[in-house]
């Protein structure tokens, strides 16, 4: 023991408070069980309605299992150590030696390389081809334009070509995306507010543009999220697999109406979709 350099009397022995070991261990056990049960019971993703989404879901479910096991193992050891070594006098020498310490550094490295990189490369990567790959030849292309706090949808019309736009022509009521009349390709463009209608079972390519600030196109059931950046023409693609109506939301803070920037995605059968499309009037 070293002498205290100050003139004060020596301190009383430090309390080990080892009575706390059990309550603390119980707290860790209870918390671990509750967290694990919660992920089991609440760890449900919304119903899947797109083709590539299964890769995303697989990645998430894989991570839930892999990280769940690591979480349980870590807390089991923590709880055990807390109980075993609480004020212990029979622990044996704590000096592990450099070799053992290095070996134990290798274990987590190997485990995490397999769990983490395995997740990214083995399970995550296959989704890329579908999310970012070249679109199919028969893909439907639609443009979605984000502005505070509304989604505007544009179809290219029978010519299959999106007409030119000019932002100086934007008018909230008369011309929401700034269609340029001088371009013949603009004449048959269809412009709709807040409603995106698409066929089921066919690839959809969405061109993304923003008029003012950054927005983010997200439909949770499709596992799709892609930012709309002013000055950029963005893209996202997916294959809807279920007929129905889905909510379209903005995921990137875009101003005070961010929370109410709601749109709808209507997925119809192919024939129904074609019928609907042929009945829509061009904007001009």
């Amino acid at each position: 023991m070293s002498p205290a350099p100050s003139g004060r009397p020596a301190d009383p022995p430090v309390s080990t408070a080892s009575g706390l070991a059990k309550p603390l261990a119980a707290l860790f056990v209870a918390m671990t069980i509750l967290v694990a049960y919660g992920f089991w019971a609440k760890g449900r993703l919304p119903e899947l309605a797109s083709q590539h989404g299964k890769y995303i879901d697989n990645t998430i479910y894989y991570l839930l299992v892999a990280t769940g096991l690591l979480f349980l193992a870590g807390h089991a050891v923590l709880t055990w150590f807390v109980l075993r070594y609480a004020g212990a006098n029979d622990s044996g020498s704590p000096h592990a030696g450099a070799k053992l310490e290095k070996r134990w550094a290798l274990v987590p490295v190997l485990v995490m390389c397999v769990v983490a990189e395995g997740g990214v490369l083995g399970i995550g990567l296959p989704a890329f081809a579908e999310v970012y790959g070249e679109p199919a030849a028969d893909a439907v292309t639609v443009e979605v334009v984000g502005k505070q706090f509304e989604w505007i949808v544009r179809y290219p019309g029978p010519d299959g070509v999106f007409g030119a736009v000019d932002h100086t022509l934007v008018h909230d009521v008369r011309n929401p995306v700034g269609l340029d009349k001088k371009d013949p390709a603009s004449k048959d463009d269809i412009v709709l507010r807040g409603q995106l209608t698409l066929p089921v079972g066919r690839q959809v390519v969405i061109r993304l543009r923003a008029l003012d600030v950054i927005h983010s196109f997200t439909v949770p059931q499709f596992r799709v999220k892609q930012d709309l950046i002013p000055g950029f023409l963005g893209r996202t693609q997916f294959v809807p697999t279920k007929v129905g109506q889905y909510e379209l939301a903005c995921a990137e803070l875009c101003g005070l109406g961010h929370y109410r920037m709601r749109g709808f995605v209507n997925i119809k059968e192919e024939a129904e979709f074609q019928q609907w499309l042929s009945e829509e009037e061009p904007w001009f």
Partner: protein
Amino acid sequence: MVLETQARPAGAHASAHDHAPQSFLRRYVFSLDHKVIGLQYILTAMFMALIGGGLSALIRYQVAWPEKAVVSPETYLSVVTMHGTIMVFFVVSLALVSGFGNFLIPLQIGARDMAYPLLNALSYWTIVPGCLLMILAFFVEGGAAAAGWTAYPPLSALAEAVPGSGLGQTLWLLAMALFIASFTMGGLNYITTILNCRAKGMGLLRMPLSVWMFFVSAILGVLAFPPLTAAALMLLGDRHLGTSFFLPGGMVFGEEVLAHEGGTPLLFQHLFWFLGHPEVYVIVLPAIGIAFDVIATYARRPPFGYRMSVWATLLIAFLSMIVWGHHMYVSGMNPLVGEYFSIATVSITAPFSILGVNLLASLWRGKIRFTTAMVFALGIISVIGLGGLGGLYLGTSTSDIYFHDSYFVVGHFHLMIGVVTLMGTYAACYHWFPKMFGRAMNERLGYLHFALTYVPMMAVFVLMHYQGLSGMLRRYYDHSIYDFQTVGRELSKPISYWAFAAFAGQFVFLANFLWSALRGRKVGSNPWEATSMEWNTESPAPHGNFGAADPVAVRGPYDYAPEGSSKEYAPQWTQ
């Protein structure tokens, strides 16, 4: 007087204790003493925490009871933005890195003060106007900044985009510039002090892990913050000087096309996250270092794998600077670049898990004493496990498509840069309180404080993970108009109740802190029977830190259960 082998800057006067300043102003206000400055930072952070915590209560009230509309949508965004900014930069960074870093580094390496005491004082007095500007922003026209703590343009660049992007955002940027200036001065001071002012015998690998982590954190801060300074200046230019660094052509507000042309908002995101991601490690690493120190002291054994922890920390620091793009997977980033960022990001889990395993293994064959500081350190192990693993879901670019901007993100980063750092700060406070005031904090209140911190905070942020899984999106004023968010909303009220409990629990700490500083149990120089250098001096540590003779380190910082000795522990300063 023992002659120094290392050069000491004139500021770190070896005989400072002989002429400690006597006037109240020079002693407690405009002090050059690192301990006083450290305490000033901590008290300032406590004050800011009351504001930041109060804002979080307001957020939780609005999110859980949107029908009551306790604030307007524009105020809500200001509240969210200011909560994030204040908590990350003006509470956690201030208390943990600037506060305890200042207080501990010289004491733990056996120095008499920082290398540059005047610069140290200057760095504190730079952050004070920063805090005032942040608070002032609430009272200007348009309200405080409302573009999120990430301040992405164009939202943050244009008053047309959101009311808070008026004067409020300008004040935000100026306050951040002051913060960065202060933090950079502090970081340079830490690096210089650690490299040049260590006591005789205090080799780099004889420094406590807390000092190592402060060292690495300072290097990271100095490297990562300047790009944000540049971004802040460029954003000010876009806002007030008509430049277009971050603003492209063709932006339309109310049928008017703005004159800006040629910039890109993505540039700002890169600059912001080039700082933003290392910043996570700037504040998390010191908390882990403190946990190592505290666990060694109360488990009565050296930390497991000291050297491996040092190497792992250096590797984490390096990797943390090359992974910022994982915040931008869905911004339109080239998927191959995204895949690189994904591989690099999750590779951090390898060295990081070394730290986790070493923390855990530092209990192995220990003789655990459950002081409050120790209980908080054990809590850190638990939270790091959960929060760290949660990061994998977001670092993996495929799953991040789903989780980006959801409550999963909110839950994850609060665990890591909120709860871990807060618990590290508390562990440090309970552990080193004797060196500040010569008294110990009340342990019973400490245990109560731990229970009221660990349980409710875990509840809040774990429940947010479930909300994120269900698809609930963050920064929403009102989730009720969406069908898909109804599942997540069921948890909003429970989360809010737990959050209020967590907030209330912190007043137990505040009361304990104030009461113990004045009336706590008086303790001697080494009440915890610890081994590192700071316990080789009176409690509270005097001006100049150590007595007339300069301290000498004769062994490592953690010689508990020394090998080949019958002693229970062998302090660093005794043969």
